[in-house]
């Protein structure tokens, strides 16, 4: 029974690993192939199955003038927009969430829960509904086709995620911890910074992770709100496609675009497993 269990466990893990890793292997090998190798049937082993070459990768860094697409600038644009928008969303979202968790707001029939839902409702609407208002808004303040404009829009999209996760998290941090900090001589700001925030690191990390993922993978708004001056990575990758699908450079760009998320996943995993609040209340 026990042996069967262990066998099944490892069997499942191996199968699952193949499922997860196979696309990466496919993308990695394809990125080193040329037209002939891609169309010549299924091959995986370089030098043996096919002759590897760096064309797929070179296209990504060559300037358009020399027949490349140059994703370097869009790559850093994407990094900059995602990180800035995520950081601002986390800061604003965390502050709003703390207020929504600890203080009572009332404006007519609108109460704390309604405000929280208002934030979440921004994500419930299909993006297409938001696209026209965003377009008109950005054009009215002259921020179309600019990094700043994209950051503003991404904050609107990412902050609800931060608020949603952090309200829930703060609700689980006992109010008595804040109160004890006040009694111990902290003013409300110090209580938040010195006591509540250090105990909210797991929540902050989860919220940050979601913001980065949703910011990084967005194609729709980047596509609609930018034209020539500024381009983000997902838009540029899609632009790679042509009448003859360049599988090699698409694979290479897929790999470089997924790299930051893998790094984030590794960092986050380490923090999430710690769990910081278990001893707060028994």
């Amino acid at each position, binding site marked *: 029974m026990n042996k069967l269990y262990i066998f099944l466990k490892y069997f499942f893990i191996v199968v699952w690993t193949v499922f997860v890793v196979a696309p990466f292997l496919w993308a990695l090998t394809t990125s080193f192939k040329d037209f002939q190798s891609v169309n010549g049937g299924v091959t995986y082993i370089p030098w043996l199955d096919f002759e590897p070459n760096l064309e797929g990768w070179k296209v990504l860094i060559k300037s358009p003038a020399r027949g490349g697409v140059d994703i370097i600038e869009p790559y850093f644009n994407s990094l900059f927009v995602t990180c800035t928008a995520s950081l601002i969303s986390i800061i604003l979202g965390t502050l709003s969430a703390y207020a929504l968790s600890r203080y009572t707001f009332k404006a007519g029939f609108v109460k704390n829960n309604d405000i929280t839902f208002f934030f979440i409702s921004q994500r419930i609407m299909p993006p297409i509904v938001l696209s026209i208002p965003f377009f008109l808004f950005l054009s009215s303040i002259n921020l179309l086709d600019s990094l700043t404009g994209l950051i503003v829009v991404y904050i609107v999209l990412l902050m609800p995620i931060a608020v949603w996760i952090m309200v829930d998290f703060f609700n689980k941090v006992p109010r008595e911890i804040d109160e004890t900090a*006040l*009694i111990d*001589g902290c003013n409300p700001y110090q209580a938040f910074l010195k006591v509540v925030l250090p105990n909210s690191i797991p929540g902050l990390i989860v919220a940050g992770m979601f913001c980065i993922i949703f910011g990084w993978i967005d194609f729709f708004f980047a596509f609609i709100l930018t034209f020539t001056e500024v381009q983000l990575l997902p838009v540029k990758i899609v632009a790679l496609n042509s009448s003859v699908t360049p599988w090699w450079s698409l694979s290479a760009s897929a790999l470089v675009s997924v790299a930051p998320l893998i790094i984030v996943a590794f960092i986050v995993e380490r923090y999430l497993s710690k769990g910081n609040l278990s001893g707060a209340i028994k």
Partner: protein
Amino acid sequence: MDLVANNLSYKPDDQYHLNEVSFNFKEGNLYTILGRTLSGKTTLLKTIAGLLTPDSGEIEFDGKNFLKVPVWERNVAMVYQQFINYPHLNVFENISFPLKQRKIDQTVINDKVMDALKSVGLVGFENRKIQELSGGQQQRVSLARSLVKNAKILLLDEPLVNLDYKLREQLREEFKNLFSKGLADETILIYSTTDPRETMELNGEVIVLDEGKVLQVGPAKEIFENPNSLKVAEISNDPPMNIIEAKISDNHIKFEGIDVEAPQHLSKLTEDGLKIGLRSSDIELNENGHEFEVELAEISGSETLLHLKRGNTKIIVSIEEVLNFKIHDKIKINFKIDKAYAFHADGKLASSPFGGLNG
């Protein structure tokens, strides 16, 4: 430095959490707030700490309006019934937190924290994480954190209620030692509890609170001997005092066909609707006594609690030994009737064996 409150009221919903509460607490004294759950004990402590603002009423400390002072400047300390510590800090950092907040010299902090650790018996635990401690140890840390501040007002909100029996006894003993050791000279100690025994053992000035209202104030002994009403008698006894509807005439107390001679302090009461109060410990098993039927027998620790019934009268008897009874067993008991209380129909004390009112 006195802590004086006048007519504190707090009514956040349709119920009073505090209803016209007034008191005058003097430094160097221990005050016990006794009341059932939801009687407003925590609300009162939080109001004193400044975490809640009453709807009306005043609090003065040292002659100054306390309500105008924000929590973080009040110099109070509070221990919660849940074991509240800062989970991201270790034991030493937890205890030194309030001192660091005051920007005191690090060597002074070290000395004070070590003293506090000594007084709660946690020397050697400085570098432990809070999560690695047992409930009792966690509560000691939060006690140490409140001791280290030398606060003028120390609030303890049912600090022992979440601990197991053994630890509770032990920590209560330590509390008593701490309170008697100099700490009390310049501090106003306010201790809230639901437990009458704890109240009696701490032996301070007792404030009986119910539904946000102060029912009686007095030394523990006075509350025990002369509860001024049925409610106080219920709250200040565990198990609650037995209340028997009886009639007194011709020097005899009569109920459910039982007829006992009235003791002197009850003999003059002849009014209708009189209620006789008798503690569960003032009833004993006796072969020649009155027959009652066992409804439930529970053994708690080394004593047996018998829930008995005769006609419409239900009583609880506690006996200091472990006895086995079955439901519906008939047993005979005797009342130590000279220990009986009498209450008027409106619940006010009519007479007590310790000389309250008519006695």
